[in-house]
Each structure stands twice: as C-alpha cells, then as structure tokens.
C-alpha cells in the first residue's frame, strides 16, 4: 500500500481520509469491509449479516459527479461491495468523521446527546447513514432540517435491536441544528481539494482500465462487448448486491469478473422516442428516481424496493438480469411494457422484458450477451396504473407478492390489460387468464371478480417462509380489488401507510 496520485492499471486506488490509497495483490472479491477490518485495521465498521440487510457495515462513498465538479456522497453496504469497485472514489468510514482535535461531527454529537446508542454495535452504520443524509445538497445550510420521512428512509437499511429507533430518529432530525464542523462540513465535503484529488484518480485513457488477475473494469461499451465475447464464462458484475452474497454467504469461488461500473455510456439515463432508456450501470437509486419522475404511481414501489445503501450500489438492470422470481422491479416494468436492449459482440437486439425470462433462473441470454439498457415506454394518458408490494415489513423486505397493473379503459370497457406479478411463479410473469377475463369487459367490480377467479389458472405459487400459497393467491386477487377501488370514484383511505389512516384525537 502506498500513496500515489497517478492511476495504475494493476492497483485499486481510492481516497481515504485525504490520502490516496493504493491496493494491489488482494483477491478481487475482497469486500470493502474485509479490507477495512482485516487489512487497514479500521474496526469501527462492523459485520452484522454479510448480506447487506442490517447496515452495521455502512460506509459512505464519494463519487465524482458527471460534471466533474462536485462529489456525490452515498451510503453503501461495505460487507457485499468488492474493493476493486470503489476504484476512483472516496471512502468515508466512521473513523473519518471526528475532527483532528477530537471534535465530534454533528451527526455523532446528535447521536450521543439524543441517547441514540445502547450496545453500540449498529451505531457506526447509523452514523454513516445519517452522515450521508447530512451531506445531501438539499440539507445544506440554507435547507431545512430533514423531515421525519427523510430520516426514516435514510435509516431504512439499518437495524438496531436496542433503542426502538426513537432517539436515532431524533438525532437525524436534530443533527443539522449543530454548528458546522471543521471536518466534513457540507462545504468542506465539496472542497476544491477533495474534487481535484478524485479527478486525478479517474481513468480516462483506454489502457488505463483497472485490470488484474480475475478482474477487469473496461472503460467503454465496445471494450466490454469484446471482453465478454472473448471470455463468455466471465462473471458480469454491476452493483454486486447479489453477487456479493455468493462469496460472503455461499462461499463460492468466483470466475474472472468483468465489472461494468466504469463504463460511462452505461451510466446514462435518456429520454428516447421509445421511452426512458436506463443504462445497465445506472444505480437503483438513480433508476427509480427517473422512473418515478415519469410514472408517479411507482413512488411507493421505489420507496419500498430496498434500503438506500442497497439502491446506491445495486443497478436496475442488475435486478432485471438477475431475474429472481421476487425481483421487485420487474412486475412494474413488464406492466408498463418495457423492453430490454442486449448486446453480444457487435450485435444488438431488443425484446420485451417479459420474454427475457424462460424459467427459474433461466434467461434468454446468449453466451457473451449482456443487458445494455432497459427502455420504459412513456406514460399514456388514460392508462390506469399501479404497482404494489406485500411483505412482512414495510422497509427492506423481499416481497411475498409484488403486483403491477396497467389497464386501458375506453368508453367504460377494458381495452388492454397488463397484470404482472412477482412471487407467484418461478419467474416474474403476466396473468394471462386474468387479463383475458378483463379485456373487452366493462370496467366493473364484476369483471374484477372474474379476473380474480382466473388467477388460480395463471399461478400455483409456492409456500415458503415469506407466505403460504393460499395467502399469495388470495392477496394477488385482493390487490386487484384494491386497484379497482383506488381507480374508481372517491375511495376511502386504502392504505395503512397513508397518514390519513391516523386521525389524531385532539
């Protein structure tokens, strides 16, 4: 390990506490957490689950924005993030925050004074999630302190078993009331020095790509296509929020990795004639933001998809390409009629997303072929659309049932129905029989009832730890009921999460 300011194609380089750290010789699947605890001796960051579900390992990554002038700081789970993927970024850990004179950062002070820690094991993760919220541009000195909802969302990937969270939520709401610290104020986080230090680490020249035994991070789409064509058995890595678990939990030895996070072209979100085109490198955070902007009905799905640390690392296309039967983005994207764009060598093809899935963990992907983007058609006026998720917990849970419905109703009749479900079959899939029961029928309770009656012909869901077959079938139908009520007339409060569910007695 040595300090250096020029990039090295063999070594991972990142900034930590103002120093450029150069690491080589570690296996490519070494996680950031393993590096911190076992190599760097920074034991403040904890392992609680090694699967990105508890947040004890949360650190903040600073990434140079596309304009090269600001740094985007986001919380991630260090336990499932491979070290080579933080190349060119700034790593901030719980040890980084305290001033050199021992001054606690406002986030830390608020946690102490609100009594936000008990056993303390989860605390570094909470501190870092709150720190990422503290640095958000909209939380700046001119901004208002974070709302309760913003704090809850920022903390949705952090588990605490001691406090009941109330004091931590208070700390999140009060941290902005403290004087700006000398170290890691919002301004200092965007200082010219920090920006230029990161800029110097960016890999530009084609031969500068990070490449060492078992790891290759091409810088262009063409380079990626030829690399994957040459070595089709390579593992294509994006956010790693699933692949990370292959090593930490399943103890698998990984094939050589081709990482697509360094390719600028894949980071693009563009409006095209065919719709919103989201590149394969786009994070779930950015992807969902873009989707919600066009389809506001997706906001609940986006909010419940996963915690910020997972969404900041994981990619939307990764969720699609992973193809889990309980991947929560697919029902909505299928209902909206999204396509996926794929590339193999120099050949491109585009297919409807629902055709990508052939069977459990089987996809219509040829050797050397990879997802380039997902293309989501623009909103249509008059289309009824909703997306729902059912799970044991609101935040950071895997759905028992996920459903998205897109209907076109004309002159009181259903002219098109796309009913897509997750959790009901081995793949995310449309309910063909239920759709058939609706199309051409009046938009009425009776039609909904017959669609519900058709669902057992569409799906024979599993019974597992998340829910029984009976529950899945029943709620798959009840979600259609909810959809109908929501779209008709003057519905009552339909959701327990709706603040109007609580009428406070005064």
């Amino acid at each position: 390990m040595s300090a250096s300011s020029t990039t090295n194609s063999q070594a991972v380089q990142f900034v930590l506490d103002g120093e450029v750290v150069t690491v080589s010789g570690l296996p490519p699947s070494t996680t950031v957490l393993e590096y911190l605890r076992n190599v760097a001796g920074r034991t403040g960051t904890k392992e609680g689950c090694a699967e990105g579900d508890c947040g004890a390992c949360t650190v903040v990554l600073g990434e140079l924005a596309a304009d090269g002038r600001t740094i985007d700081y986001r919380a991630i789970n260090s336990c499932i993030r491979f070290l080579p993927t933080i190349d060119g970024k700034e790593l901030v850990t719980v040890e980084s925050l305290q001033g050199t004179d021992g001054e606690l950062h406002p986030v830390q002070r608020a946690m102490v004074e609100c009594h936000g820690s008990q056993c303390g094991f989860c605390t570094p993760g909470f501190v870092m999630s709150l720190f990422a919220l503290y640095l958000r541009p909209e939380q700046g000195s001119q901004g208002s302190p974070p709302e309760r909802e913003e704090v809850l969302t920022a903390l949705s990937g952090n588990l605490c078993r001691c406090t009941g969270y109330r004091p931590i939520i208070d700390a999140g709401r009060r941290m902005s009331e403290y004087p700006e610290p000398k170290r890691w104020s919002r301004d200092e986080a965007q200082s010219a020095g920090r920006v230029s230090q990161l800029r110097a680490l960016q890999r530009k020249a084609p031969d500068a790509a990070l490449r060492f035994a078992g790891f290759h991070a091409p810088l262009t789409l063409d380079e990626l296509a030829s690399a994957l064509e040459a070595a089709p058995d390579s593992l294509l890595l994006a956010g790693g929020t699933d692949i990370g678990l292959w090593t930490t939990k399943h103890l698998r030895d990984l094939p050589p990795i081709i990482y697509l996070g360094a390719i600028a072209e894949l980071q693009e979100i563009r409006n095209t004639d065919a719709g919103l085109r989201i590149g394969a490198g786009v994070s779930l955070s950015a992807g969902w933001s873009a989707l919600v902007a066009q389809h506001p009905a997706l906001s609940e799905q986006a909010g419940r998809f996963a915690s910020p640390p997972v969404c900041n690392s994981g990619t939307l296309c990764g969720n699609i390409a992973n193809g889990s039967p309980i991947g929560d983005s697919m029902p909505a994207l299928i209902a909206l009629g999204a396509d996926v764009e794929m590339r193999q060598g120099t050949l491109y093809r585009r297919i409807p997303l629902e055709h990508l899935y052939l069977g459990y963990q089987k996809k219509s992907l040829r050797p050397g072929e990879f997802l380039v983007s997902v293309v989501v058609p623009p909103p249509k006026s008059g289309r009824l659309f909703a997306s729902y998720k059912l799970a044991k917990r609101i935040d950071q849970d895997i759905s028992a049932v996920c459903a998205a419905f897109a209907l076109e109703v004309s002159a009181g009749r259903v002219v098109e129905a796309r009913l897509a479900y997750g959790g009901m079959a081995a793949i995310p899939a449309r309910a063909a029989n239920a759709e058939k029961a609706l199309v051409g029928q009046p938009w009425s309770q009776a039609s909904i009832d017959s669609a519900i009656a058709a669902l057992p012909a569409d799906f024979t869901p599993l019974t597992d730890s998340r829910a029984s077959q009976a529950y899945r079938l029943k709620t798959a139908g009840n979600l259609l009921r909810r959809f109908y009520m929501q779209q008709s007339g003057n519905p009552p409060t339909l959701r327990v999460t709706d603040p109007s569910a609580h009428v406070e007695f005064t």
Partner: protein
Amino acid sequence: MTSARVSGEQHQPGAGASAGGEPHRHEASARVSGGEPHRHEASASVIGEPHPHDSAHLHVTGKALYCDDIALPAATLHAAFGISSISHGRIRELDLAPVMADPAVIAVALPADIPGENNYGGAVHDDPIFADGLVQYAGQPMFAVAASSYTAARKAARRARVSYDELPAILDIRAALAAESYVLPSRRLVRGTPGTVLARSPLRLQGTVLMGGQDHFYLEGQIAIAIPQEDGAMLVHSSTQHPTEVQHIVAHALGIRAHSVTVQCRRMGGGFGGKESQPALIAASAAVLAAKTQRPVKLRLDRDVDMIMTGKRHEFLADYDVGFDAQGRIQALTIMLASRCGYSADLSGPVNDRAVSHLDNAYFLEHVEIISHRCKTHTVSNTAFRGFGGPQGMMVIERILDDIARTLNLDPLDVRRANFYGVAHANVTHYGQTIEDNIIHEIVDRLEAESAYRERRKVIAECNSRNPVVKRGLALTPVKFGISFTATHFNQAGALLQVYTDGTVLLNHGGTEMGQGLHIKVAQVVAAELGVPLSAIRATTTDTSKVPNTSATAASSGSDLNGMAAQAAARTIRRRLVDYACEAHAIDASRVRFEHGQVHIGARIISFGDFVRDAYTARISLSATGYYRTPRIHWDRATLIGHPFFYFAYGAAVAEVAVDTLTGETRLLRVDILHDAGASLNPAIDLGQIEGGFLQGVGWLTSEELWWDAHGALQTHAPSTYKIPTARDWPAHSTVTILERSPNREDTIHRSKAVGEPPLMLAISVFHAIRDACAACGATGELPQLSAPATPEAVLRAIDSVSRRHA
C-alpha cells in the same frame, strides 16, 4: 409528534458536548424525580441524572471494542462449526478427510478431542458441545475446524462427508404433546378449587392461544477467542452475559479447574438473553481447539449459523377453559401450557416456571390450575430471551380477558380492570406471594385519561364504520413483572473497587454490559458514595479473575444486584477514609463530607485526589470488595409456591393500529406508555430500555416469524428473511413517560426498579390493538383467531375467521 419524557432532561444542541476523547455528559443540572427516601446526601448531583451511556462517545466514533475488534496474537487460528443437515438421526459416518485436505486447515475437533466433559448445559447436562453419534436438530454442531482464515474455516467445515441413519423427528408442540416428549417433567400449580368453580360458573369459554418464538438478533453475533496461557491455563474473550458459566464450562470441557480459566467481556453488541447460556458452546469449542493446537483460536459465527444453531424465545401454546361472570370477572381458570423447548433442557425449566408465575399478569386468579409441559422437539434448544417466559404467560391471560370482553360485548379495558389485583385484598398471587406494592390502578387510570382512551375508542368505531378496507384498533394492556431470579441463589453479586492515588476509581463488578447502560448506572452509584465526578470513575472489563462466582447479567437484575454490591464496596472505602480523616484531623465523622470531587473535613476542603494520596501515605487500604444478596426471597421449585420476587415492576401501554383488511398489513399508528422504574437511577438510560424493549416486543408479536420447513430446518436465518422492526416501525405518534414520584417500596439501590425486561411486555397492547381491528371486521361477540406473530398472513387469517360468515 413524538415525546419522550425524561425527568428534567434538556436537549440543547451544542451544549454539553465537550471536545476530545472525554466522555460527553450532560452537565446541566436536571430535575430529579423526587420522593426517594433514604437518599444519600452526596448523591443528589448524580443519581437520577440522564447521563449518556458511558461508551456513547466510543460507539459513535467506532472506537468501542467488541470481541471481533480485539487485536489478535500472531498465529491465531479461525474456527467454524460443521453442522448437521437433519433433525434427528444417528451419524453413520462423519468423514473429515475432505475438510483436512485443505492446507489452510490446521486442526479439527470431534467429541474425542474434548479432554473433559462434552457438555455445555449449565443446569441439566444434556447439551453436547459436539453431537456424539446422535443428532437432535438440524444445525447441531458435530465438529469444529480451525484454519488460517475465517473464510477457509467456513469453507472447510462444509466439506465434511456425513451420512446419517435418520430417525423420526418431533417438530412441533402438538406432536410432542401427543408423544409425551418432554425435556423436563411437567409441573402443575393449583390454587383454590378450579374444577368445582368452573363447573358452576355462569359463563364459560374455551380457546387456544398460539405464539411463536423469537430470535434475539443481537447485532453482534456469538463470538469467543481462546488464548492458551502458561501451565495449562486458558484466557477467553467471550461475548457473554454469563462469564462465570463460560469459565466453568470451559474448565469442564478442558478437564482443568476453575482457577485456570479466565473469562473477560468488555461489552456485547446486544444480548437480550441470547448470550446467557449459548456463549459457553462457542467458548468451549474455541478452547478445545486452542488446547489441541496450543494456538489462539477465534470462533465467530456468521449470521446464518448463529441463527440456525443458537436457541431462541420459546414458542408457546395454551389451551384454556375459563369461567366468568357477567362483568367479566374470572371465577375459575384451567390452563394447559406447553412450550417448544427444543432438544435439550437448557434454561427451559425456569423459563416455563416464569410463564406459569406470570400467567396472572396484573390479575387476581382465585381458582386456577396451570399444567406446564416442557416439550422436547427436534429443533434448536430454546433459551433465555428478555422476559424469560413471562411475556408468553402474560399473552395467555391477556388473550383470555380479551375473549371474555368480546363475548360479553364489554370494553376489554373494563374487563381487565375488573380483574386487577386489589391493593389490600385479593392481593395474593397464585404462587402464594402477597403483592405489597400494587400501583397498577393508578398507572392505568392515568394512562387511560392521558391517552384519551375512551374518546379515541369512539372516533375509531366511527372511522371503522365508514371504511370497509382499513380498520383501526385500540388496546390498553398492563404489565406487572416480578423482579428476581426465581433460583434464589443467583440473587447475589460482587464488586471490586480500586481507588488510585490520583483520585481516580476503577470499578469492576460481576455484571456485563450489553448496551443496557449497567456500567453508567453503577458508576453513578459509586460516584454518589465517594462524591467524585463520573469522569473520575472507569468501569472495566467484566473479568472472572476480578470478581468471582457471578450470576448472569439477566432477569433485569443487573443494576439491582451490582449497584448494591458496588455501593457496599464504595461504602467500605469511604468508611476507611472517614476514619482516617477523623484520626488525622481529630474531628467527628459527622463533619466529614465527600462531594464534587472534594473532601470537606470540618472547614477544610481538600481535593479527593490529594486526600486519598494522604490516606495512602498513611497506609489506608484503597481497594475493597462489595457484596450483596437480595433479602426476603424464597421459592419452592417443586410446588412453585413461595415469595420468589423481591418486588414487582409495573407499566401500561395504549396502542392504536391500522389494519389493511385486503392484505393483512398493519401499522402501529400511536403508542402511549407509562412505565414504572421506581426512582430511576438514570432516566435517559431507563427510557432507552422502555422504548427499546417495547419495540422488540412489537417485533416478536408482529413481523418476526420463525419458519421451519417440513424437515425441521429453520428457513428464516438471516435478516433477509427474518424481519425485526426498522425505524419506520416506530410509531409516528408516541408518548413514553417514566412514572414520577414512585420510589421502590423495597430497599433497592436508591429505590430504583429493574427495567430491562418489563417494557417488552408493553407490546402486548399492539397485538391486542391488531386483534381489535380484526374484530371490527366481524359481528359483535366474535373472537378473531389471531396467532402471534401477527404477520400480514396471520392477520388476514384472523379477519377471515370472523368475517367469513358475514361476507
């Protein structure tokens, strides 16, 4: 709107936090909830103050050291368990050649490698460290492997080739009852003539109450580091609530004596009862490998193995038959209580005993019979968990009262109140203890008024009549929880206090720190006695070589026992110092005072540091041990009769929820809590216990579901599948109040009360609020069949159970 009332605490951002590595403490003088008699004069400035946790500044900077953070000696090995894949069977062949084939593997340990006893069961010796021939649950350790790295050890452990002769497995309580499969003999407690009275009761109901278990989900998993010492001794760093038991089990496993094993624990990343008996298995396995290789061995369980292999809260089932009158007063009650103990006894005896002794909660049961079956199943052996059977017992009676109220179309609160223990009469528990400190009436009356219970009841009924989809529910439930270990001999503690010549104080006691703030509370006690600032006191690692023969930090007893022991030690030292002052300054003891870091000797004021240096020079001993045993308690474990509890802690909660009747999803909308901590030693710490205990209970009763597959393998063994509450599950509207001016009537440490476990049971209000909302889907008098946890699926089932006939 969230309000947490800590007596006198002022939150002033920017004030009170000092720079540097100093502890950050509120200096502002806070109003102390008054009324405590016998308070020592010097204590006024520190007892009852909302001091932050003594490690808070370390927690937030990542500098607090846990076992996994300890710098390891060179040549340390990392260990992992090889675990069984079946629930019940004989090991036909265990081939470890593929394990040993990895050059990173240095050693394996099998039963034959244990020099002493292959057991980690503390009470009944039925817990093998490594399964010896017979496997009794899926996930049972069969061997351990030591390798050069954590990952290498885990990978190697999975390479064993195992074949089994499978045996029939008993996987749930009903199957165990049918087979009369028990880990311990069943118990029966009878008072009065329940059979006769039941037969002539005007009204009668029968029902079954079901509630699931709970994983502790401490954020820090089980871990131990064993480091061989000279002359056959062993040093063990263990994340444990019970260092003494770890010491004994390690000694027995190694075939050495207690004085050769030292166990240390600076802090745990959460315990909740999960680190009472379980750490002995981890520590003993590490020690066996360390003894075999003569190298340090670290054994840290990954989350999945931790959740699969270690015990949990007991799942319970209860069949009841109750007779009552038109006001809902219970006339007679018979109950068959059965719990899933798993394959061995562990702490199941006392856990089930506490379920029996807490079946009354706050209610007088004049004629009652309780049969308690401790069922043996081929699943992990269940263990201590905050409340220790008490929550399960209380869930049973609360459900019975709710059933009675719904049957009679009475408000459940009225039925609950009609059954409360009296203050001067109807005040003897079914196990024969007279309740001398009953304050449940005033708590419930006040909470009912302050939470606007009656008014909200009307608003909710009105909302429910208008909304066919989202139903709201409301419930108020009380808590009365007995404080003391039921095993009388555990109710003792020791402390060791050392004063150095610069006036600083090193505090050691038998209690362990798992986040509950024990060290800061005990430090406050010592600071009060010696009149020194908290910054002069340092609480140190719990260490079996400093304070011996300690009890587990459990049963909410930590500050009651260790606070008293430390106070005794401090008083011994103070007495010596006073004697010295009297002698050296020829003054009467009444004119010597210790306060604010100074010693007042008549008109003279000397700093505490200078004074103890003088005392040292005059050859006054500056270290002392302290000892305490709880008075008054006794209990006959065979008849379940006696005076097992020194006192009771009380509380009550009102919860309001919303239920989506299409999906079964629920939200906790509001909670109002009024809880009794006696004269709180530290209201900030106690508030943390109340709020945290409450939400942990909410998790148990709502989202936390343990799910075993048909072969008895636990499938919810990671946070991806086992869902504890998140921040969004704390209600948007909460008022949590510590009962003021209510000192303990017993002579506890500064008249405080234990607060670790009781608040968990406040969560029963949430379960009953959900049940209330389910009931709103059916006709009056219907009883929703809601089992715990009230997952969306369970809730939808309960709604179906009342609404099907009316659909």
